């Protein structure tokens, strides 16, 4: 591999890490509260409001049913509004975040829903309010699942970021398509695949380690 290609590879790794990291973080910041809202407003939840739950569910399902490549293009005006440009790595973070947030909200929802209702009742019986229940019961008890779900989301984002090349965001996927596939640079393709494997394994390993440390359930 030529020094130029190597430099390109390093830059692509950085772009992928940036896209995945930033949109992952954003999906965590917005997805977790969204997941909490889904659980809280459901029947028997701590802020039961079926109307809100249905509305949130419909919006989330709407975003989740649009293929990412379509979302990427359809959100261009929104991206331009937020980032000021519709091309480049930072521009890709907007559609990636908007796709990952409802995805992660659903994953967080599953973990939060599994928290034993008896624990919520115990906190209520102690005189806890909704905020206490969220902070002391729901989130800490669901934390292993919340972290495991975040790991899954990050890995999914690495895959999705490959498509971001379509709007000039760069990244490993883009490199693999342009050099490895279209220019038959097999060495680039192999290098990208190896880097991706290392990235995915690394994230999964770190996530699993963290979950094991957080999980005191058994």
């Amino acid at each position, binding site marked *: 591999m030529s020094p130029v290609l190597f430099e390109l590879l390093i830059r692509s790794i950085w772009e992928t890490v940036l896209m995945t990291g930033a949109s992952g973080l954003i999906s965590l910041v917005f997805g977790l509260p969204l997941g909490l809202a889904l659980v809280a407003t459901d029947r028997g939840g701590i802020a039961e409001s079926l109307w809100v739950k249905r509305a949130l569910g419909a919006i989330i399902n709407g975003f989740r049913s649009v293929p990412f490549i379509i979302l990427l293009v359809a959100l261009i005006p929104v991206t331009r509004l937020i980032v000021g440009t519709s091309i480049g790595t930072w521009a890709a973070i907007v559609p990636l975040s908007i796709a990952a947030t409802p995805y992660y909200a659903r994953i967080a929802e599953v973990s939060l829903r599994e928290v*034993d209702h008896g*624990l919520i009742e*115990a906190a209520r019986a102690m*005189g806890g*309010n909704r905020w*206490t229940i969220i902070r*002391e019961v729901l989130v800490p008890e669901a934390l292993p699942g919340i972290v495991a779900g975040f790991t899954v989301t990050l890995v999914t984002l690495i895959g999705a970021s490959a498509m971001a090349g379509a709007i000039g965001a760069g990244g490993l996927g883009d490199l693999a398509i342009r050099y490895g596939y279209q220019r038959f640079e097999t060495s680039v393709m192999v290098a990208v695949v190896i880097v991706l494997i290392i990235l995915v394994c690394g994230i999964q390993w770190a996530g699993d380690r963290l979950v094991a440390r957080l999980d005191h359930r058994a």
Partner: protein
Amino acid sequence: MNQHIKASADLAAGSHPPASEDVVRLTELKRHFGKTAALDGVSLTVRKGEILGIIGRSGAGKSTLIRCLNGLERPDSGAVFIEGREISRLSEGELQPLRRRIGMIFQHFNLLSAKTVEDNVALPLKIEGRPKAERLARAAELLELVGLSEKAKAYPASLSGGQKQRVGIARALAARPALLLSDEATSALDPETTRSILALLRDINRQLGLTILLITHEMEVIRSIADRVAVIDAGRIVEEGPVWSVFANPRSEITRSLLGGIRPQLPAEIASRLVPGAGAEAILRIDVSGEAARAPLLSDLADAVPGPFRLVHGGIDHVQQQPVGTLFLAVAGNDENHLSQVIAFLKARQARVEVLGHVAGSV
């Protein structure tokens, strides 16, 4: 005016001690789920410092009842007075500080798995907004009380069922409640652990003067620690009184059936051979309590009414230091006169006698 309303409510409720002595007073509590009535007009009083046990089969309304006391459940009608204050119409926000006066322990312990034992115990104080040092000091004190000091830093998953319930009890006591609610607290525990948990609750009741209301489906629990018992069936209190007196003289069918497991019953093989009318031997059931149970009843009977009789089953129990006995006698049954003499003698000695039937041969 408040005073006036309270006074007239007391009057309406009948012969209760002054309201200040009642930690809990329920009047005509009703709660329906769809068409079924979980509570169908429950009136009940829990006095300061006592242990009141509420017993009933599953589905009798026990859980709904206990949840009405801290507002986890709202009654459709009726009133819930906690330390003289009506709580059933309060908003969730108004209930929250009040719930801190009421500790609760659960069948499945409901400890937070993500928190250490001491953090679990300290949680009610954290909710109250107490500083950390105070919380941990109180948690240490309570863990000492329940005998789990060495487990302070452990996570609940590493504890046995009995230890988890001890943590649950410590947590329930953290905010120094006026009332402890126990929701089937020993139902998931083995008999030996159950005994030790009940002994702990008894100690806490005596040492701290804490009022305890417990619900259970096991008469053994009532017998071990309750001062008074209320029997609930189909959402109604069907029987209520001091434990020994309900044990000695159960009036309702449901109470008798709940007592079945721990009071002597006619052995099944004899019961299956009972026939009405005449037979070689008459089988009598004799219930005695108090003085009648302390007296040498059987030897007096032998002296007073000559003729053979045999004890086939039974015994004397002690409930709240009161002897409560049930004896099954087989008395020669061919002679009506002899049998009625025996019955007359026993009745004169304050025993309740019932002729269950006759058996043909010897039993």
